[in-house]
């Protein structure tokens, strides 16, 4: 096991449960800045749970292991502290916040990152917001709509990527960002994500289908099963999974086979 890089999002032998039920069973993963990794796996493999645990969802208990952001443990920190340290989660099911406009929501989030007494410059903020919205083909009148309220699936996902673009995280976890998207929306969202790729961000893309990875080509692909990463490879692994299915990889690398090896 390699030592966690000081410039990575690093999950070390993580065990976590909800109530008495173990969900993560020794998961290890290292996402260096500048890389895009994908986690694939069957429904129920614990992929979305992993995302929520990293973000600090209060329903889950971490029983052992660690999550390090640039070498510092973030376990035990409030979700908002983790966020301000640079961790972003694009939700599979983004929540509606009635009466809070997108413009005000993102503004409040950016304001929360400023030192006390410092005010966000409104003109610069709107210039940046409009530029990012244009790039994601989000109509400008969305700024005055309430966060996710009455949005279509595609609009919600675009709005997640818009927030990511505005908040400029150093690590982003995209949880099933492709679910519920038609092909046009998928292309727009993928283009938005690709535009954010670069040496200053590490991304973890959680997906069930390899379709998304045609548009966001990952540096590495990991297969998750029963709360662990059972196999890793390059982007061709996703294609192989697509044609051979998850049963193949679980048989080859899963619980029983690792024990045998």
């Amino acid at each position, binding site marked *: 096991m390699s030592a966690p890089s000081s410039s990575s999002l690093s999950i070390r032998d993580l065990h976590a449960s909800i109530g008495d039920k173990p969900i993560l069973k020794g998961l290890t993963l290292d996402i260096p800045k500048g890389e895009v990794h994908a986690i694939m796996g069957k429904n129920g493999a614990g992929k979305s749970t992993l995302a929520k645990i990293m973000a600090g969802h209060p329903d889950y208990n971490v029983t052992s292991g660690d999550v390090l952001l640039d070498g510092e443990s973030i376990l035990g920190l409030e979700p908002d502290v983790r966020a301000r340290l640079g961790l972003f989660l694009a939700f599979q099911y983004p*929540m509606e916040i009635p*009466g809070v406009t997108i413009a005000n929501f993102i503004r*409040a*989030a950016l304001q929360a*990152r400023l030192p006390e007494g410092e005010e966000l410059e409104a003109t610069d903020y709107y210039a940046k917001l409009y530029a990012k919205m244009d790039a994601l083909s989000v109509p400008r009148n969305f700024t005055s709509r309430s966060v996710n309220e009455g949005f279509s699936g595609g609009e919600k996902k675009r709005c997640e990527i818009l927030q990511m673009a505005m908040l400029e995280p150093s690590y982003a976890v995209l949880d099933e960002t492709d679910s519920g998207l038609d092909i046009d929306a998928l292309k727009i969202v993928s283009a938005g994500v690709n535009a954010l790729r670069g040496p200053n961000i590490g991304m973890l893309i959680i997906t069930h289908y390899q379709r998304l990875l045609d548009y966001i080509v990952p540096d590495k692909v990991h297969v998750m099963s029963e709360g662990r990463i059972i196999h890793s490879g390059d982007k061709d692994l996703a294609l192989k999974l697509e044609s051979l299915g998850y049963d193949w990889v679980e048989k080859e690398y899963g619980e029983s086979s690792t024990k045998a090896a």
Partner: protein
Amino acid sequence: MSTETKPDIDIDRSAGDFRYEMDYAYDAGVGLTEATIDYISDVKDDPDWVRAFRKEGYRKFLEKPMPTHWATKDLESIVFENIRYYLSQGQIPKRTWDEVPDDIKKTFERLGIPEQERKFLAGVEAQFDSEAAYSNIKAAVGEQGVIFVGSSEGLKEHPEIFKKWFGKVIPSGDNKFSALNSAVFSGGSFIYVPPGVKVKHPLQAYFRINAQNFGQFERTLIIADEGAELTYMEGCTAPKFETATLHSAVVELVAMKGAKIQYITVQNWSSNVFNLVTKRGIAHEDAEVKWIDCNIGSRLTMKYPGVVMKGKGARGEVVSIALAGDGQHQDTGAKMIHAADNTTSNIISKSISLGTGRSTYRGMVHVPKHLKGCKNNTECDALLINSHSRTDTYPAISVRGQGNAVQHEASVSQISAEQIFYMQQRGLSEAAAMSLAVNGFVNDLVQQFPMEYSVELKRLIDLEMEGSVG
């Protein structure tokens, strides 16, 4: 603010929680008897008819039962014998801030009143305990014939208008507290807007309680003559005391044919003030009366602004926001009395209950059988923050006859843990997330407030939310 280093005051996080020691020139003492009423009448040099009106009010106050059976037992905690009914340093309001005694002036400066006046108001009245310390109207507005004075001055200087409407919209025997107000009223505004005059900027009154064990009983009468338009705003604060304080106002509005009155309240009394206020307007033909009412503070507020739609085509509206914090009870609502054909009323009420706070919506819509073409829309939404917060809705809608339409919607919602997690994931602290969600809940109503007030409202909500999450 510049006065925060003064040693003679204690400051809390809320801007209204401070007080200065006062020497009162006029003090009616503790408790209420006929002698108290005579004292007040003597100090104010009341005309005989006003003294008689007070005595009549006092008699009705003694007769009327407490409305505890339908609201709350907490009303029984008011000990009328322990209250001071009249306190003032002088009964003539000043026309310039320079003439206002220093200790009173610094109170209003801390509350930002002179600054707001310069910025966006057409006139200001600032009441300190029983009397207005300052009352002034911008020259241009006065030249249009608009009268904006205290109630004492109104009844003396303009009896021909004052007497015609005073006590007519809300008879002194309407309820126990309107009777009490009739007996001991002091302060409040008298406004008359002549036909066709549209006052562009709001007139504002600010009510400040400084004394402990005190009762403030202002009386406001606003008349908008045919086709006239006016926006009136009132703000109120008091420092926190150990003992209960009473605020019991009566506000009467008269909108003549085609007139429009908008009356805006931002109530932020401290948590020991019983706020028991009777507010009602009459809308004549094609006139409009709109109450925008925001209740954030007080221990118990009971207030149901009403509109009597007396002329054809009249409109009545109540938009209200109530925030019941820990230990508070906001019992608010609206009364819409349709008394002519084709009248329209609209009630939108949003309440937020925090901690052990309780908010109650109490509404009454009345459309008698002989009327046609009347419409009412009622929406009341409640937001509960904690599991032990409480909300109740008591709508009483009586609509008779054919061709009248009524619509009622009510909802109760909670801010979910998932919503808070989502907002926290964007970097907002739990309290900030909660504040944002609460502000979002009332956002559509807050936008109806003038900008300066909506900013203040947001700040007040943020302050209330700060202590509410653990």
